[in-house]
């Protein structure tokens, strides 16, 4: 049997797009962790980010916009021995699928959610995303967006996520490192990746992030939720911490299901029906 590779079709992203770096980060992390494509579940959302479906191999779903998290949760519950990764954008994960995101944090489902956070909708030609700063002008908000941005890190931290991290698409080393830690984490892990959209976002550029990101100090206490929330709020002052903000242990969703002593897909068929029909007598 020939060795399977993660490399799929050649990517079609714009030259210079942050997605190139994120794809390399995911691929390198999985290779360094010694996975092959038949050992991972990938759930792609819809958008430029989700278009990675044809560029990164694995047992994958390329489902509906905003629904990559619930799809991945279903995959994980059905076969919890598979490492499960969601790949989506800020629109799908924090906008259209925002409700799923917060409930996935609460449930501590053992999945890794990698978000391409570029503050715009690339594939639909540059409309504002929920993470864009207040006043951001786009085709759909010509007079500037009225809403203040979603704070994904603070949201995840306060809704029960057990691993919350951030990276920058221009920082390959940190991206690989954080994704590896997230995949190894037991429970819900968020990797929010700041990703310049070179075509539509002229504000949050590589230069912008090089200037405004900083690596979390070695002294940062990852197990302190209060400190992590404090770090997550620095975005309000235009500062973006890079690295793992928070990590804690809590049984993941499938571990709390007594019936999942073996993967759901592998167990034998249940057959003692008459004890159930007795209930109706």
């Amino acid at each position, binding site marked *: 049997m020939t060795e*399977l590779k993660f490399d799929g*079709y050649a990517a079609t992203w714009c030259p210079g797009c942050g997605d190139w770096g994120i794809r390399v980060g995911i691929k390198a992390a999985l290779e360094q962790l010694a996975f092959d494509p038949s050992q991972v579940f990938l759930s792609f959302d819809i958008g430029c980010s989700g278009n990675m479906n044809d560029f990164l191999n694995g047992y994958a779903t*390329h489902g509906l916009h905003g629904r990559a998290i619930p*799809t*991945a949760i279903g995959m994980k*519950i059905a076969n919890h021995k598979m490492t499960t990764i969601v790949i989506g954008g800020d629109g799908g994960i924090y906008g259209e699928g925002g409700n799923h995101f917060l409930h996935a944090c609460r449930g501590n489902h053992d999945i890794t959610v990698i978000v391409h956070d570029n503050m715009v909708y690339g594939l639909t030609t540059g409309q504002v995303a929920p993470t864009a700063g207040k006043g951001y002008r786009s085709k759909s908000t010509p007079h500037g967006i009225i809403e203040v941005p979603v704070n994904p890190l603070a949201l995840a931290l306060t809704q029960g996520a057990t691993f919350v991290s951030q990276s920058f698409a221009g920082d390959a080393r940190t991206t690989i490192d954080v994704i590896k830690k997230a995949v190894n984490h037991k429970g819900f892990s968020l990797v929010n990746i700041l990703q310049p959209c070179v075509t539509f976002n002229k504000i949050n550029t590589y230069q912008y992030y090089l200037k405004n990101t900083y690596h979390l100090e070695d002294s940062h206490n990852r197990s302190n939720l209060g400190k992590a929330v404090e770090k997550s709020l620095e975005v309000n002052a235009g500062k973006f911490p890079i690295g793992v903000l928070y990590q804690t242990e809590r049984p993941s969703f499938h571990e709390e299901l007594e019936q999942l002593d073996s993967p759901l897909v592998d167990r034998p068929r249940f057959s003692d029906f008459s004890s159930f029909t007795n209930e109706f007598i």
Partner: protein
Amino acid sequence: MQFNWKIGGEAGFGIMTSGLAFAKIATRSGYLIFDYTEYPSLIRGGHNTYEVLVSDEVVKSPKWEIDLLVCLNNDTYKLHSDRLTDKSMLIYDPHVFVPEIGIKIPITFGKIKRDEKIDQMMMNTIAVGASIGILGGDLSIFEEILHQQFDRKGKEVVNFNLKLAKIGYDEALKNNIKPLSILKKKDIIDPQMVITGNEAFALGAMVADCRYYAAYPMTPASTVLSILASWQYKNKMVVRHIEDEISAVNTALGASYAGVRSSVGSSGGGFALMVEGLSYAGIAEIPLVVLLAMRSGPATGMPTWTEQGDLLFAVHAGHGEFPKIVLTPGDPEEMIALTLKAFDLADIYQTPVILITDKFLSESHSSLSKKLEDAALEKHKIDRGKIVNDTKETPYLRYLDTKDGVSPMLIPGKKGTYYQANSYEHIEDSHTTEDLKERVKQVDKRSKKNTTYLKNHFELPKIIGDLNTAEIVFVSFGSMKGPIVDAMKLIKTKSAYIHFTHVYPLAEELVQQIFARCVGKRMILVENNSTAQFGQLLRMQTGIIFKEKLLKYDGRPIWPEEILLYVDDNTRSVVEEKNDTKIKAKVLSEDFRKKEKEIMDKLVAEMSVE
């Protein structure tokens, strides 16, 4: 023998518990039952009722006239006076009101309540005890039920309830009323399950090896979620009350992609949120079983009342074109059988299958022989079609073009290969495409599943009664089966019923052949909605048109007596005339079976089977 018992009172009085207890007393005494409940969308206050029709023979719908009405308040009497006759018996508290009609059986509920220092919740136990007394039933059966209900709450609670049942029993017989033999325990008793449409679905799903069920509560689908949730540690199904119906359908699709049989359920509003997911299941070819329990709409409508108003919505649910199968069981027995079939069909055709019920079927209990059902469930074999655990192919062609439209589906996890369930149009190996030839190839491949289904798994409507001799022919689908079948027993003219359970897609010519046999008969379409949706669907798929329609959409089911009244009103009568019929097929000049075989052979030839 048929006897109609009904209890009414304020919501929160324990009406539902005592109604189910009465139904089980009847079945455990050797009788068959059908029950029907009405309640408003409130937890306290409002008026709740529970009626149980007890019979020696199979009953499938409620009866209009009430034989014994238990009035836990004055409203019960006032709200049901139009369903009482001089022969109706009434249990009531003489200190609260005195009925003007019927046979009076006063019971001083208020006094007992004060003497025994009990709350209103317990009055129903007295009322059931009294009913057993009057109807000549065996009190020990009720005592057994009370034990099952209250044993876990301790001896004191059990004994107190037993005492109240006995008080009711004695009180009723104190009035010099000679007990009837309505509930007289029979010598030979075939144990009966007392089961609703929703419970039948839950049972069927378990037997069909459904391993994942996700839902957000919505009446009248909610009880499926609660039953399956209560069973999950025992049968190892994963059952989730999830954040919304969108998540329900997408987690189910994820689980199904990963290889486990999965299902979701809701009523119209929740189903509306799942529709995009159906479309994904259609293009990515992921098996899914959806239970749609209809209620009176639109929007929030009347949450606890019945209607068949979502049929066309279900048939058309999902953007884009993809195969879909819609089934409409008519009673709990058909619900079990069609649930088993639905999970097989979803796997065989790798596409969504929608099972439709409504509040009337979902929440009404029928009696079903446990012995017969156990035997049927025991022998059920699962057919997963072309779903496999292994392959030698690389690259794996998940969407391989085949003659029957169905591609082999590998359960993910097999080492050495991979593929995607792609919501974009794709080529055979599952990569995205916008190529025109590949697009047409995949659309054609998917739509071939329809032809295969019509050949291999579509079932013609059941004909109840003798179509050859019938002068009146009823046509309907789903839960209207019970009222129509029971109405046929009341109607003097010879009648038959064409009962559709496989409503979409329909085999056009085969269905037309059945209707060709009806020329010259009075055809009546019966539906629990205002726009004759099944009539529209039949016309769309077969060209058949109805002139006479009995439609009801006030939130209540159709009573058999209403069908009788409608039929007897001659001003409405329209006989289907030969020249009038829009049926394309000619009137049968030869045996129907022979023609049916010809059409089947033609279909098979067209398919050029692998």
